């Protein structure tokens, strides 16, 4: 009997097992704050989970979608030891260096990749996520399939990196292995956030009022 208990404890201690009822408990993986307390409160652990894939669905650019992740990117580069890399793959426009420096991002550790095809972009993302030298990989895509997303998720978990995939909202009803899915849309004044899927949390719209 005691042997069974210990094996169950072993299983529960495995990082790959997540417990639905225990979402509020501190996760074993570190999280990075989103910079918005109302959003942090809705995410398990209180921030973007690392070593996982996050999917952001939006139809427009310039809604503040990158701003959601910039505080986390800055925080990730403040880790002890060698400053990790950030990789931006196929961004819709040129990332503007002065703006990123203003936000506190270490530009010498930022890599911009411009692949010519979607497959190349996915391949580059998989390489970067799994390399172990990147803290976060941001990827902009028009469309992809479930199989590739699963590969990205595995690479992110293996490399301990945060993968963020931006793609159009029409993929909303497709299944996705991402551990966090959210829809960003235009609101009256602020952008609107709708959590579609939160592993270990509760989905639903997020009120972004306040800081």
């Amino acid at each position, binding site marked *: 009997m005691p042997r069974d208990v210990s094996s169950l404890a072993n299983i529960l201690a495995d990082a790959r097992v997540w417990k639905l009822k225990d979402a509020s408990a501190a996760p074993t993986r570190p999280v990075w704050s989103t910079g918005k307390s109302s959003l942090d409160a809705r995410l398990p652990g209180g921030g973007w989970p690392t070593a996982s894939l996050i999917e952001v669905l939006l139809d427009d650019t310039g809604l*503040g979608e990158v701003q959601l992740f910039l505080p986390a990117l800055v925080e990730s580069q403040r880790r002890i030891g060698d400053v990790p890399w950030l990789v931006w793959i196929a961004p819709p426009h040129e990332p503007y260096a002065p*703006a990123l420096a*203003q936000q506190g991002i270490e530009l010498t550790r930022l890599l911009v990749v411009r692949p010519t095809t979607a497959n190349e972009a996915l391949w580059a993302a998989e*390489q970067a996520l799994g390399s172990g030298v990147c803290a976060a990989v941001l990827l902009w895509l028009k469309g992809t399939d479930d199989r590739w997303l699963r590969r990205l998720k595995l690479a992110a978990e293996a490399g301990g990196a945060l993968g963020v995939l931006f793609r159009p909202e029409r993929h909303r009803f497709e299944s996705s292995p991402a551990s966090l899915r959210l829809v960003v849309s235009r609101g009256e004044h602020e952008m609107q956030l709708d959590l579609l899927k939160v592993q270990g949390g509760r989905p639903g719209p997020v009120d972004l009022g306040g800081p």
Partner: protein
Amino acid sequence: MARHAKSRTADLFAAGNTSPALPAPAPAPVPAPASASKPAYRPRPSEAPGGGVPPTPQTAARARSRQLWYAVVFPELIEADASAAKLQKLCMHAHAFTSLVSIEPPNALLLEIKGSLKLLGPLETLHANIDACWRQLALEASSATAPSTLAALWFARAGQPVRIEDLGMLAGRMAKLPIACTAWDADRLQTLRALGVTRMGDLLRLPRAGLTRRLGVGAVKDLDIALARQAAPRRAFVPRERFRERCDFESEIETTAYLEKAVEPLVERCARFLRERQAGVQTLRLKLRHRAGPATCVRLGLASITSERRRLMDVLIQKLERLELSAPVRGMELASGALQPLSAASLDAFAGLAGAGGRDTAPQLVERLRARLGEEAVYGVVSIPEHRPEAAWQRVRELRLASVLRAGEKTAVRGADHAMPRPVWLLDAPVPLDSELILEQGPERIESGWWDGRGVARDYYVARQIRAAHGAKLWVFQERRSKLWYLHGMFA
């Protein structure tokens, strides 16, 4: 002696201070001392016209205290045709004793052995071992060890196998040397003989100013170097080596998958070759030979100098996977680019350890991305302190890959801290706007660049479009002359 020199220097400075406007008086030659009991040769600043200022005692001492030179002269080589090539070969043998070997044309080598004493010393043993090396090669050689390059060389040329470690004894031991061992030109030696100078001791006793005038600056400088009063850096001999190896296949290979397998042992040997030489490469060339037609050449560029098998293989595979074979391959040849020393800062020595765990290093990642996507597709960005928004950033291809960067140490030049926020996305070119806007923040006037013909005079605002389709926060400006509105960026 020191006091004497000091007081002279003080006098000269005093003279300069009282009449600063006058040109410096031509230095009067110092008469040779009547009694030759005291050596008169000593470096004095400002005495020699154009003779150069001997270095300060501190710097000279620092340079010479670390050095001990073994010189070897091969008298047979002077007539030999290919003496330069022969000397280069001998350098390879000399590398067994020290890493700093320098060629002295036409027939001598200089070895810095101070650094080798701890490991291969004491001096007697080391000296004898190096001598034995030449004997084994059946070469006639005469050698000497002294604290300076020229002194060692002169002793070796004179055929005096001395071993002088102590700098204080150098001048005294040199006194007996014939002046011919300096290998100065015949005119100079003739001048000296006319003066009755045949030994180095006589020469050192002569006043510096007169020597400079009679023999030229070069001779006095030689004496300074020989007495280790002046540092004389030598160019170390670096073996020019490349890895180049070929292999032929028993049967022709038609698919790149088999090529990858076939190239593996070549890369393995190349990596071992590099590791043995503590060197790395940044370029590689793989030549695929066909039965007919020109060979296919695959060139590889690496993001940083490396000697690691896994990284070389990685890039090769990426290239081979994308290669379209025009014809079956019969053989291949792998050649490395120029060998470059592996620096400790590159941490490549440890890359092997990191790589063993299945993790990549940053250079590896960049190489792999570049190998498949092309050099242009992977880049970094820098911020430039410049007011014009479009000129305030730049793409960079040279990434700081090798160095370790600690958190908190800022390397980027941060742009001026703007009161106004900057957008994350900047459009390649400003787009004219015609719809109505709600201006939320601004204006920020930017007026700059009139000097290079790309001047701007703009008022920048953070704005939102009223039209329903776009709710994005925009970075817009109004051209001040034309009063037209443009979109320049987006806050994402």
